[in-house]
C-alpha cells in the first residue's frame, strides 16, 4: 500500500516538475532568434572549465566562491544519489545502489557520505554569512535564499537520519562505509527498539522524499532556477568579448530596440533565468556604487519578472499588461535606470554565468530613442550636433584641423601614407586633449613611420550615439566613414581615444570592414620595445597612479601595454589603485554619460578621483580623453587640482623623448 502511494507521489511530483520547466522554458520561444550553438566544441570546453571547474565563481577575489564550489560539487555527487532515490521510489524492486557490486557500492557510499557532510557545512556557512555579515550588494536575507538553504539542510539531515536508522536496524550492509551515519546511529539510536526504528526509517524516508520533491518543484518558481539554467547559460555564452551591440536593419515596418520583452533574443531571456542574484554585478557597478537608481542585478531580475508576467500573454497573442520600460513597479525598468549606465562592462566581467547586461540596456535605450524619441534633454543637442556636424559640440568642421597648426602634421595621402592618425572629436576640438594630440604627433614623428591625418574631412566615429541607442544615426555615420576609408585606401589606424579605438575595431567590423586599429598605448609600447623610440628618462612626477580605461581594458584586454610603457619611461611600475585591471572603476563618462547631467548620488568621477588620491598621487596617468576630463573635473571638484596633475600616457612619453 505504502509502496503504491509513494510511486504515485513520486510520479505526480516529477510530472509537475517537468510541466513547470516546460512552462518556463517555453517562454523563451517568444524571444528573437540567435545562433548560440555554433562551435559546440569550444562551448563544451567552456562548460567544463567555467561551470564544472567553477572558474566562474572562484574568481575576482570573491572568497565565498569557494563555498559555492564545495556546494556545487557536493550537489553533483548528490545528484547521482538523489536520482537513484527518485528512481528507486518509482521502481523500488529494480533500481537501488545496493544492487551494485560492492566494489562500486562501497566507495560510492563513502563519496555520498562526504558530499552530504560538505553540503551541510556549505549551507551552514551560507546561512551564517547571510545572518552575521551580509554583503551589501545582495538581498542577503531574502526569503527565497533561506527557503532553499533550509531545504538543502533538511535534505541532508533526512539523509543522515535515514541512514543512521538503517544502520541501527542492521539493514545497511555498507554501514562501515558511512562513518557519519554510523556515528549518529551509535550515538543516538542504540537504545531504540526495532519497532520504533522501522518507524524512524519510514519517517526519514518520507521526509527526504517530500523535501527532495518539494525542492525540485520549488526551483522553477524561484531565483534558484539558476540551478537548472546556470550551466546551459555558460554553454550559450558569447564566444567573443561582448564589446559591441548588434546592428539593426532599417526598413519600413521594422521595430527597433527592446521596448517589449519579446524584443530580446531567446538568449537574452535565458540570461534572466540563469541569474541567482549573487549581486557581483551590482558590487562592481559604478552607478550602483554612487547611489544611482541603476542596479544591474535588478535590471536582469525585472526582465525575468516581466517575462513571467507577459510571456504567457504574448504566447496566447494577448495584450501585455506590464510595460518593460517605465511601468514604475517590479518587472519594469525605469528610463532613469537605463540612462545611468556607463557601459563600462564591469557587470559582465564578473558575472559567473556570463549574463550580458550592457547589450540589453543599450537595446532598451534604442527603443526609447528610435521608437518613442524619449530622450533626456541634454542628449537632443548631442544628437543634432553629431548628425549635422559630426562632433558632439556642433563646432564647425573646419576647426577640426586647427590643433595641427601647433604640431608637425601631414595630411593622409591615398596610396602614400601608411598609418592614419584618427584624432577623434576630443583630440581635435577639446583644448586639453589637443595637447595630447600634439604629444602623439611628436611620438609618431620620432618613431619614423609614415602617418597622416584627415584634417577637416575626419568624421566622428559615432561611439556615443551607438551606446546611447541612436543606432539609426550611428549607422549612417559608419557608412560615411567607411566611404572615406575606402576612398583613401585606409587600412591602418592609430587612435587617441579608446572609444574611437573600440568602435572602429569592433563595431565597424559588423560592416565587413577589417581595419588594423591600434591604440596609441599599444603603438608606443611596440615602438619602445623595438627600440624605435629613444627615451631620455622622465622628470619627477610624484607618485604616478595609473587608471585603466574601460574601453581599453575590459573591452579590449589592453592592460599590460600602458603599464609596460610607464615602467620603461619612469624606470618603475606605476602605483596601482585598489580597483584595477578587469575590475577597474569607470571614470563615469562612457556610454554617452559624458554628455549627460549626473544629478543623483555621488559623482562617479569624484569617487574615482578620491580613490586615486588615496595613493598619495602626484600624477594620474590616463589613456583616454574622457577619463582625462573626468579626473580633471574630479580634482577641481575636491579642490586638489593644484597638487595633482592628470597626464595622458602620450604626454609622459613625449616629454621623455630624446
Amino acid at each position, binding site marked *: 500500500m505504502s509502496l503504491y502511494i509513494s510511486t504515485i507521489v513520486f510520479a505526480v511530483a516529477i510530472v509537475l516538475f517537468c510541466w513547470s520547466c516546460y512552462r518556463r522554458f517555453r517562454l523563451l520561444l517568444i524571444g528573437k532568434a540567435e545562433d548560440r550553438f555554433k562551435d559546440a566544441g569550444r562551448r563544451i570546453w567552456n562548460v567544463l572549465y567555467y561551470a564544472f571547474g567553477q572558474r566562474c565563481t572562484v574568481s575576482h577575489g570573491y572568497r565565498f566562491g569557494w563555498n559555492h564550489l564545495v556546494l556545487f560539487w557536493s550537489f553533483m555527487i548528490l545528484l547521482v544519489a538523489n536520482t537513484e532515490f527518485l528512481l528507486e521510489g518509482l521502481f523500488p524492486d529494480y533500481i537501488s545502489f545496493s544492487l551494485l557490486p560492492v566494489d562500486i557500492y562501497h566507495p560510492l557510499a563513502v563519496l555520498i557520505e562526504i558530499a552530504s557532510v560538505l553540503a551541510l557545512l556549505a549551507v551552514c556557512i551560507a546561512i551564517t554569512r547571510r545572518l552575521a555579515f551580509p554583503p551589501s550588494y545582495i538581498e542577503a536575507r531574502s526569503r527565497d535564499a533561506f527557503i532553499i538553504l533550509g531545504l538543502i539542510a533538511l535534505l541532508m539531515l533526512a539523509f543522515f537520519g535515514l541512514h543512521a536508522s538503517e544502520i541501527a536496524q542492521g539493514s545497511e550492509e555498507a554501514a562501515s562505509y558511512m562513518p557519519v551515519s554510523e556515528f549518529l546511529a551509535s550515538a543516538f539510536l542504540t537504545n531504540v527498539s526495532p519497532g520504533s526504528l522501522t518507524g524512524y526509517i519510514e519517517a526519514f524516508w518520507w521526509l527526504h522524499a517530500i523535501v527532495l520533491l518539494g525542492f525540485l518543484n520549488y526551483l522553477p518558481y524561484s531565483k534558484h532556477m539558476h540551478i537548472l539554467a546556470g550551466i546551459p547559460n555558460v554553454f550559450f555564452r558569447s564566444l567573443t568579448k561582448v564589446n559591441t551591440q548588434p546592428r539593426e536593419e*532599417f*526598413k*519600413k515596418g*521594422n521595430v*527597433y530596440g527592446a521596448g517589449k520583452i519579446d524584443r530580446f533574443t531567446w538568449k537574452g531571456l535565458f540570461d534572466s533565468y540563469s541569474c541567482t542574484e549573487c549581486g557581483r554585478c551590482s558590487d562592481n557597478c559604478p552607478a550602483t556604487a554612487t547611489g544611482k537608481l541603476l542596479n544591474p542585478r535588478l535590471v536582469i531580475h525585472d526582465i525575468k519578472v516581466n517575462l513571467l508576467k507577459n510571456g504567457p500573454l504574448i504566447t496566447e497573442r494577448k495584450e501585455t499588461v506590464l510595460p518593460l520600460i517605465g511601468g514604475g513597479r517590479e518587472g519594469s525598468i525605469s528610463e532613469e535606470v537605463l540612462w545611468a549606465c556607463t557601459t563600462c562592462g564591469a557587470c559582465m566581467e564578473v558575472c559567473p554565468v556570463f549574463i550580458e547586461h550592457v547589450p540589453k540596456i543599450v537595446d532598451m535605450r534604442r527603443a526609447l*530613442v*528610435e*521608437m*518613442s*524619441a524619449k*530622450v533626456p*534633454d541634454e542628449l*537632443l543637442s548631442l*544628437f543634432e550636433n553629431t548628425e*549635422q556636424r559630426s562632433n558632439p559640440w556642433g563646432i*564647425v*568642421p*573646419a576647426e577640426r584641423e586647427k590643433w595641427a597648426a601647433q604640431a608637425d602634421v601631414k595630411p593622409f595621402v591615398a596610396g602614400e601614407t601608411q598609418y592614419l592618425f584618427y584624432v577623434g572629436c576630443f583630440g581635435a576640438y577639446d583644448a586639453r586633449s589637443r595637447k595630447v594630440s600634439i604629444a602623439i604627433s611628436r611620438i609618431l614623428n620620432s618613431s619614423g613611420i609614415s602617418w597622416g591625418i584627415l584634417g577637416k574631412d575626419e568624421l566622428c566615429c559615432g561611439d556615443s550615439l551607438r551606446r546611447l541607442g541612436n543606432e*539609426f544615426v550611428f549607422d549612417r555615420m559608419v557608412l560615411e566613414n567607411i566611404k572615406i576609408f575606402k576612398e583613401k585606401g585606409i587600412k591602418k589606424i592609430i587612435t587617441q581615444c579608446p572609444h574611437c579605438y573600440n568602435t572602429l575595431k569592433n563595431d565597424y567590423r559588423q560592416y565587413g570592414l577589417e581595419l588594423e586599429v591600434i591604440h596609441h598605448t599599444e603603438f608606443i609600447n611596440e615602438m619602445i620595445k623595438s627600440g624605435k623610440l629613444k627615451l631620455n628618462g622622465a622628470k619627477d612626477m610624484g607618485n604616478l597612479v595609473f587608471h585603466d580605461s574601460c574601453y581599453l581594458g575590459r573591452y579590449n584586454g589592453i592592460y599590460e601595454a600602458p603599464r609596460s610603457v610607464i615602467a620603461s619611461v619612469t624606470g618603475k611600475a606605476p602605483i596601482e589603485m585598489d580597483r584595477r585591471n578587469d575590475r577597474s572603476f569607470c571614470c563615469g563618462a562612457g556610454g554617452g554619460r559624458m554628455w549627460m547631467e549626473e544629478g543623483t548620488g555621488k559623482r562617479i568621477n569624484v569617487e574615482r578621483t578620491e580613490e586615486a588620491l588615496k595613493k598619495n598621487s602626484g600624477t594620474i596617468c590616463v589613456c583616454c580623453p574622457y577619463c582625462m576630463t573626468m579626473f580633471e573635473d574630479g580634482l577641481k571638484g575636491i579642490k586638489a587640482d593644484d597638487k595633482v596633475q592628470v597626464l595622458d600616457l602620450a604626454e609622459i612619453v613625449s616629454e621623455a623623448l630624446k
Partner: protein
Amino acid sequence: MLIVTCVKQVPDTTQVKVDPVTGTLIREGVPFIINPFDTYALEESLRLKEKYGFKVAVISMGPPNTEVTLRKALSLGADEVILLSDRAFGGADTLATSLVLAEAIKKLGQTQEVAMVICGRQTIDGDTAQVGPGIATRLGYSQLTLVDHIESLDLKAKKIVVRRRLEGRHEIVQAPLPAMISVLREINRPRYPTVPMRLFAQDAPVTLWNNKAMGLKEDTIGLKGSATQVRKIFSPQREKGEIIGDGIKDPKAAAGLLIEKLKEKNIVCL
C-alpha cells in the same frame, strides 16, 4: 482647422565666410540646415496639433533642395508639406517672399480654415524678422511677434492669448483668430524624430507649387518684385582695441586711466 508653419532652409551661417576680395558669400561646402528658429515654430504647431487636433501644413519657399528640410518636418509629424519653388521666385526680399507665402496660405485656406500661421522669430541668414509680420499684414491676420508662451486658445470664441517677451518685460496679449505668431527659442524644446517617422518621411509626398500653380504676377515676385537689392556684402572692419596702463602691476592707476578714457568719450560723467 489648419495651422500653417513657415520654414526656411538656410546655409549654416556659422560656417559661411565672406570672400574678402569679391565680397560674396563662400557657399562651397557649407551645409544647409532648417532655420533654427523655425524648428520651434514647427514644434509649437505640433504641440497644438496634439492638444486640439489641428492639421499642420508646412510651407517653404526656396530652391528644389529645400525638400530635405520639408522631409525633416514630415519626420517630426507635419501632415502636409508644400514646397514653393520656381526660378521666378528667386532673389526675393522680404516683401516678395511674404507675398508668395501669403498667397500660398490663401490657397490652402480655400479648402480648410486656417487658424494660425506660426513662424520663427527670424532667419539666421537674413535676420530681418520681417517675413512673419509681412504675411500677417497681407492676410489681415492678428500679428503676434516674439511669443514665448501660448497662454490659452479658445477655438469657439476664436481667441488666442499669448505672452510676448519684450526687453525687460513680458506682455500678455489677447487677439482674435486667425493670427500670425512668431516664436522665440524659449517657447519649447523641439522633439526628436523617431526612426519609423524618418523612414516614412523619406518617400512621403512633397507637394510642389511653382508659379504656374500659384499664378502670381511676375513683377510682384522674385527679384523683380523686391523693393531692396543687395549691392555689396562685406564683413565690417573692426577697430582694434587699445591697451592702456598695466592692470597687473598697478591696477589702481589702470582703473584711473580707464575712467579718464570713458569721461573723454562722454560715456560716463562724474
